[in-house]
């Protein structure tokens, strides 16, 4: 049995359509069976409400007198794109204010406009024969703009990997605050209510499909950037009229230590035209699995600690290596449900009819990493291979002599097997000499907790380590903890004027 979109829309227009939210579907299918559900249910509404960094809006301000072709543009001190002619611009949600840093950004401009607040436009131009004006400053309300079209390149992620931190310091990430030593887990996404999780093959969700966007009736433009539905990480590009949006569903936010982002509500109605739709919308939180990634590893390829599903994440506790770890959602399930319910009422009242995709989105698409034609410098490229080290059982005096002779301030300390066990600096030696006590051997005064790097580590990561620990050098070790070189602040000078600056 199949049901045509026309039949469904007839019922919608007559106010007779049976509309349910996606979280109700697993129960309905379990109770009625697939066939009966197909007969009974006409539309399933979905919803999600979370941080969607890749969002923004096009504005047209209308022409000033005399007219200006705006080349640099700021809205409440947040820079907007000046490469669109005359009085058009695009403001990105994560762009930060030049005066208030991460406490105000593009997302706040968007929210302030929607909330009815006044926003200051400042713009500059070099002036042309047709656009003589060079500067403009004016206060604007949303109603003063000709168009305010939200257009978000990457929204409504199908699912998102959960985050944990195995290092010994707090991390501030776009996945929120991650406590040290696996102290918590953060996740994002509405699971059972998520639009793309209810149509992973993108049969009903595609170009031109009507959606809920920030409280307005919007539309799917097409596949989103970084769309990777082959691996279960589909995204959508969406658009909607900002003038019809509500602050209830558009909220600026700041992830401490990361920056500004926009929380937005997106919902998509899915017409129940066949059994495949019944099956895909019967998805449960338990069926949607993601990796739990260690954000302590500063790499694109973060290791997965384990697989975890949305039912576990939402329960508040996830077990990792026998330990119970508390979870935090970064997206709001209450708001996601609110979006799905609002969308449901729109369809029930006949305010939104359904449309099949005018063009399909590729369900087999896979995201690629960046092609890098020039690799950034690695520790290997600048490290100093002349290593002067000292044995842990040697006398402090011997260390002092080595430091002098080697013209260095840092001596890695090795044990009888030649492995790194500590480090002494000129400061440690001076201290030992100035305050003579019981210490006579290097191992008595060495620092045992040594910050190290490896030859393959990108210099940017190594520099972060030096800064974080407020040190000026560290040993470069191999897998077995043999010291193969030193990396010092002086070596960083090799980057300047070298081939890395082109």
């Amino acid at each position, binding site marked *: 049995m199949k049901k045509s979109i026309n039949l469904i829309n007839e019922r919608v227009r007559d106010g007779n359509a049976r509309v349910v939210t996606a979280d109700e579907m697993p129960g309905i299918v379990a109770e009625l069976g697939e066939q009966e559900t197909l007969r009974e249910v006409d539309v399933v509404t979905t919803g999600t409400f979370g941080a969607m960094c890749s969002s923004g809006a096009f504005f047209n301000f209308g022409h000033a007198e005399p007219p200006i072709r705006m080349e640099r543009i700021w809205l409440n001190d947040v820079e907007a794109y000046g490469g669109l002619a005359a009085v058009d611009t695009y403001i990105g949600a994560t762009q930060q204010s030049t005066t208030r840093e991460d406490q105000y950004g593009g997302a706040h401009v968007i929210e302030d406009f929607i909330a009815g607040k006044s926003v200051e436009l400042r713009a500059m131009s070099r002036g042309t024969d047709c656009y003589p004006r060079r500067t403009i400053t004016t206060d604007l309300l949303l109603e003063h703009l000709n168009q305010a079209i939200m257009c978000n390149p990457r929204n409504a992620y199908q699912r998102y990997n959960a985050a944990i931190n195995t290092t010994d310091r707090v991390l501030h990430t776009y996945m929120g605050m991650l406590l040290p030593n696996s102290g918590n887990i953060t996740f994002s996404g509405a699971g059972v209510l998520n639009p793309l999780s209810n149509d992973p093959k993108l049969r009903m969700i595609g170009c031109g499909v009507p959606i809920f966007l920030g409280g307005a009736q919007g539309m799917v433009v097409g596949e989103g950037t970084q769309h990777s539905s082959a691996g279960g990480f589909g995204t959508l590009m969406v658009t909607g009229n900002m003038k019809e949006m509500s602050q209830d569903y558009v909220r600026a936010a700041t992830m401490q230590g990361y920056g500004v982002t926009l929380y937005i509500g997106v919902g998509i109605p899915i017409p129940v035209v066949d059994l495949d739709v019944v099956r895909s919308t019967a998805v449960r939180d338990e069926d949607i699995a993601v990796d739990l990634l260690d954000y302590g590893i500063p790499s694109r390829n973060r290791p997965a600690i384990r697989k975890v599903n949305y039912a576990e994440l939402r329960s508040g506790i996830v077990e990792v290596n026998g330990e119970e770890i508390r979870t*935090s959602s970064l997206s709001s399930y209450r708001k996601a449900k609110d979006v799905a319910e609002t969308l449901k009422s729109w369809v029930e009242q006949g305010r939104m009819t359904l449309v099949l995709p005018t063009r399909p989105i590729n369900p087999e698409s896979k995201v690629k990493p960046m092609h890098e034609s020039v690799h950034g410098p690695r520790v290997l490229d600048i490290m100093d291979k002349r290593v002067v080290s000292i044995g842990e059982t040697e006398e402090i005096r011997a260390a002092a002599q080595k430091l002098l002779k080697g013209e260095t301030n840092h001596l890695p300390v090795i044990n009888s097997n030649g492995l790194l066990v500590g480090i002494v600096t000129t400061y440690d030696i001076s201290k030992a000499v100035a305050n003579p006590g019981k210490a006579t051997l290097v191992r008595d005064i060495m620092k045992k907790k040594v910050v190290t790097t490896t030859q393959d580590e990108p210099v940017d990561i190594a520099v972060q380590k030096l800064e974080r620990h407020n040190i000026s050098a560290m040993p470069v070790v191999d897998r077995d903890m043999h010291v193969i070189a030193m990396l010092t602040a002086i070596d960083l000078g090799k980057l300047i004027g070298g081939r890395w600056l082109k």
Partner: protein
Amino acid sequence: MKLLVNFSRKAGQKPIIAQVVKETGVLINVERAIIDSSEGEALIDIPDESCKIVKEKMANLGATVRVLEHGIILDETECVDCGACVSVCPHEVFYLDDQWVIHVREGRCVLCGRCMDACPHHALYHKDDF
């Protein structure tokens, strides 16, 4: 009742909290303390009825004592009920109810302030400015 006690080393290296426990017999629960070479701050929890005597004794020993009336406060107009605060709180002050709405168990709060950093929406604040 929670009290915020500040003491400086100028007052001598007196074991203020221990002294007050000894003299009053009140069991003081130290919930949070930062003490360095020159000054210290401790958040203590005591039974309401002992507030007056503990406050007086501590003041006599050179400490400044302030009663903290409130724990962390949730601004419901800013909160979107995401839950970012839930797992970062060491005292499990926050929880989501069965409608996925955030609730605050204010009495458990020791005002460490961690949730204020973790909240993406600046929806958490405290009244006792300290």
